């Protein structure tokens, strides 16, 4: 994170704000709600409070503006610059200007007003841009479902370096951006995808292309804005060019960027008993067309042709895969199966039916 040089900050913690005008692209009540939630992002981690004023001059004046709006920083029309804000201070200090020509929404279409406002209010409170790609104060826009939004730890550290911690008994913490070579890195799920390998963690995915040394960090929402974060299992059906994602008792089937119609479905549709509440990991064996689902200490085998679970399952993982413990994530590549348990990775040879190698979870990132 970066505090604004000169460390401008508000001298009081109880600040005022006012919405000067509204965009015709959203219901007024939705704009009010977006503003309220965006302010709450910062008040929930600091001693700051925000009171709404209907008239009079407020500390933070929020408005929608068009092109040259006489602040020496004209907007540029749709896309490009979405909004800007001014550091704490008198008059224009603290004010937020949103580019009226953007497509403002309360969901994943166009630009989500809540996300952009929360970012701009960071500037109004004294923060500059962060170079942590997962931070709210990162300069470029990326969609996050407002209902899933958690202020990243980088932003919490930044704003608390200016105003101190919140008065709440429990100090809130936030998600930390995964780093490919963090030795403690664990994964929620992993899948191959058209020759690449995608490692999922929280809102993020690390994308590893065989021809590139570096893994690329992106938000899951970059490819699939309607998928939730925290994907718990994922596998690729190469023959059908489909990826199946699992979270809790639901699953989505995706081809390219598109979620196929009719999804999400409940996992019981695949043949799981109602006692199963979530899938920990999954992989598809390209040679046999069988998919393996790992749940706690057991696993099921699913026939992709018949679209049903094979008889004689579930079986104990330890009986057929050895001592790999509970499986966080799994994928198959070049005939081997890779199982991940915490920061440990096991390479399994399905022909020899045994573990042939044990590595760090980050072995794919050329650390």
């Amino acid at each position, binding site marked *: 994170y970066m505090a604004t*040089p000169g460390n401008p900050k508000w001298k009081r913690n109880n600040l005022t704000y006012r919405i000067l005008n509204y965009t015709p692209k959203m219901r007024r009540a939705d704009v009010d709600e977006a503003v309220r939630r965006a302010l709450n992002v910062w008040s929930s981690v600091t001693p700051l409070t925000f009171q709404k004023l209907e008239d009079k001059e407020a500390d933070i004046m929020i408005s929608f503006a068009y092109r040259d709006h006489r602040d020496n920083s004209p907007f540029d029309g749709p896309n490009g*610059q*979405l*909004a*800007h804000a001014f550091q704490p201070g008198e008059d224009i200090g603290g004010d937020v200007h949103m580019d009226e020509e953007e497509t403002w929404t309360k969901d994943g279409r166009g630009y989500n007003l809540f996300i952009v406002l929360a970012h*701009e209010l960071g500037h109004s409170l004294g923060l*500059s*841009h962060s*170079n942590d790609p997962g931070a709210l104060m990162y*300069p470029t826009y990326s969609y996050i479902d407002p209902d899933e939004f958690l202020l990243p730890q980088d932003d919490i550290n930044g704003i608390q370096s200016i105003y101190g911690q919140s008065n709440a008994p429990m100090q809130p913490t936030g998600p930390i951006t995964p780093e490919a070579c963090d030795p403690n890195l664990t994964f929620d799920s992993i899948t191959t995808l058209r020759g690449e390998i995608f490692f999922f963690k929280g809102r993020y995915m690390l994308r590893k292309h065989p021809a590139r040394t570096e893994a690329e960090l992106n938000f899951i929402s970059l490819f699939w804005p309607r998928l939730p974060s925290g994907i718990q299992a994922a596998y690729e059906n190469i023959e059908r060019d489909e990826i199946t994602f699992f979270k809790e008792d639901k699953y989505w089937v995706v081809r390219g960027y598109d979620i196929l119609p009719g999804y999400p479905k409940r996992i019981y549709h695949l043949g799981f008993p109602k006692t199963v509440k979530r899938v920990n990991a999954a992989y598809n064996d390209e040679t046999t067309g069988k998919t393996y689902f790992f749940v706690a200490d057991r696993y099921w085998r699913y026939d992709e042709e018949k679209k049903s679970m094979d008889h004689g399952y579930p079986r104990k993982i330890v009986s057929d895969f050895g001592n790999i413990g509970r499986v966080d994530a799994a994928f198959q590549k070049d005939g081997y199966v890779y199982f991940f348990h915490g920061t440990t990775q096991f390479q399994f040879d399905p022909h020899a039916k045994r573990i042939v190698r044990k590595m760090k979870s980050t072995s794919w990132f050329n650390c």
Partner: protein
Amino acid sequence: FPVAPEAEDEEKTLQFVESYLQSFYDLRKDHHPHIRSGENPLTAKLKEMQSFFGLEVTGKPDLETLEMMKKPRCGVTDVQK
């Protein structure tokens, strides 16, 4: 002679890069690219932008750099004036 398409593209790309660096990296409008002494200010600012975004610091408007510049973003600068 009509400008060859790629030269025209190149000109447009250079203008786009200049405009981005002026907006967000405090590149002076009157920067003199032919100053003998020292590095070309545009190249220096381009390296600053690439370093901020964790891109390979080439000083050239390569594909990844242009992709990052085209992303919708906040209008506040990335460096402090």
